């Protein structure tokens, strides 16, 4: 079992605290989504996990050991922090061959990961001519070389077309099913809703949430109810009197918050109002995230 254990991790660059006392655990067998707005400290945290950056304080262990103490690193952790990090003049196969050699992995692993990522056909081509999607696949092939128990991907869906996004999503799910610990960062919440089981949310370097996906939605998404009736104006007044907040929705519908659909139904029956629609709206992960990180985004746009 390889868990990634992050304890009190802090990174300061001069006066700036980029990561501030962050602790969380990445468990095997599930996809942990690592969320936060741009500049929240996700990449810096991932660099500290993989030993690229030294923490100012706190520590990270992978299966109980620090990254730089791993005897054969690629067999324990596969990490893709930057898909562009390939020398454009080297072929895909040579790139993987050099990485495999550095950890003494057998040569056939190169062909195996090329097959798993669908790159057999371009193995002999120089990576400089690869599309972003192909580079992403090559980067992922590299992470799988050592058949590692833990995987770390920084924004793997960035810049991909829908087919590429689906492919990576399926891959993440299947890696977790194989019992591996998978940590995936993203700044796009709805993408995570489809692939992550667990969420770690940070904003301005601080941990905001560390929770299961469904608990996160329940706790953070203030649900609304869509209501349609022949006399929206009159019913809106009744709803407000009952303590709800009412907004006007599309096509003279009402968007109600503060009351459950059950309570709204009973209120309508009590006043003899005929409802043509009564639909609880599940809060989107996007909304929940915006709600949660509102105070911690680095640059906020002003609504015109």
């Amino acid at each position: 079992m390889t868990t990634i254990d992050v304890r009190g991790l802090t990174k300061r660059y001069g006066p700036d605290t980029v990561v501030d006392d962050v602790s969380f655990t990445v468990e095997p067998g599930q996809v942990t989504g690592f969320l936060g707005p741009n500049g929240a400290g996700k990449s810096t945290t991932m660099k500290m996990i993989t030993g690229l950056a030294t923490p100012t304080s706190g520590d990270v262990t992978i299966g109980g050991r620090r990254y730089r103490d791993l005897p054969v690193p690629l067999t324990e952790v596969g990490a893709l922090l930057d898909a562009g990090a390939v020398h454009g003049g080297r072929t895909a196969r040579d790139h993987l061959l050099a990485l495999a050699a550095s950890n003494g992995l057998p040569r056939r692993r190169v062909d195996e990961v090329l097959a798993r990522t669908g790159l057999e056909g371009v193995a002999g081509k120089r990576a400089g001519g690869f599309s972003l999607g192909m580079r992403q696949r090559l980067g992922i092939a590299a992470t799988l070389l050592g058949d590692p128990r833990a995987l770390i991907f920084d924004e793997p869906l960035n810049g991909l077309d829908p087919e590429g996004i689906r492919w990576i999503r399926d891959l993440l799910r299947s890696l977790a099913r194989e019992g591996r610990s998978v940590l995936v960062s993203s700044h796009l919440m709805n993408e995570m809703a489809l692939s992550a089981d667990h969420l770690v949310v940070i904003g301005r370097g601080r941990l905001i949430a560390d929770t299961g996906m469904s608990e996160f939605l329940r706790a953070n998404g203030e649900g609304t109810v869509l209501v349609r009736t022949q006399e929206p104006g009159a019913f809106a007044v009744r709803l407000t009197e009952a303590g709800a907040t009412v907004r006007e929705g599309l096509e003279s519908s009402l968007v109600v918050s503060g009351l459950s659909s059950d309570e709204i139904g009973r209120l309508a029956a009590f006043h003899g109002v005929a409802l043509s629609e009564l639909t609880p709206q599940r809060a989107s992960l996007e909304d929940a995230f915006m709600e949660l990180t509102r105070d911690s985004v680095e640059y906020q746009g002003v609504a015109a």
Partner: protein
Amino acid sequence: MSTLTSTPTRATFGHALRAEWIKLRSLRSTWYTLACLFAVGLGVTSLALSSAGTDYADASAADRAAWDPTNLSLTTYIVAQLIIGVLGILVVTSEYATGLMQTSVMATPRRLRLLAAKVVVAAAVAVVAGQLLMLTSFLLGQAILSAQDVPHAALGDPGVLSAVIGGGVYLTAIALLAAGLGTIMRATAGALATLVGIVFLVPALAGLFPSWLEGLIDVWPTRGAAAVLATVPDPEYPDPWLNLGGMCLGVAAVLVAAFVLFRRRDV
């Protein structure tokens, strides 16, 4: 996914060395740079010696006494050191330019081992290329001189082998200096500019330096350290291998700084 059967229990320096060799040989730029080293290096030799016949005919008795056909055929080192320096720089900086250094450090988190593997591979290539260039340049140069009927040397003549081998050692040391500069600067342009400053600019301005800096000039590239390439002893440098040794110590100091920084800095 299949399981690994022949995975080692521990990644070693040998593994890192093999990986660096694969990286270096799998880039076309490596071979272009080496081809360029020989094309330019030997080209300079043949150009420089093409008028040796008239030079010798016009020379005074004193100049004829100082006539050093070995040294003449090896002056191409001046250009060659820059090209072999580019090779040394690129071993490190090409990985910073592409971001590949992150991948390399994750695969080999023991950073001293990683950098040592790069330096050893660069040194191995430089030793072979440098010695081969000096030898071919000597042979080509002597052939040109003999065709013009001016005094020329043979490999067995006194001091010749020492000069040719010394030239190869000199070029290897420059390649290592370049790799160290590349590690410290993390950028090709900065490292190359520094290398040019060291091998060309400082020697050109040496006359302006205060006297207490003269000891440094005695071991400086293109100056004292290059005295090893001569077979006619220079009274200023009676024991040129010591001067070359001094330069090697300087290169070692740069490399130590490079290792310390590479270990401490975030990637």
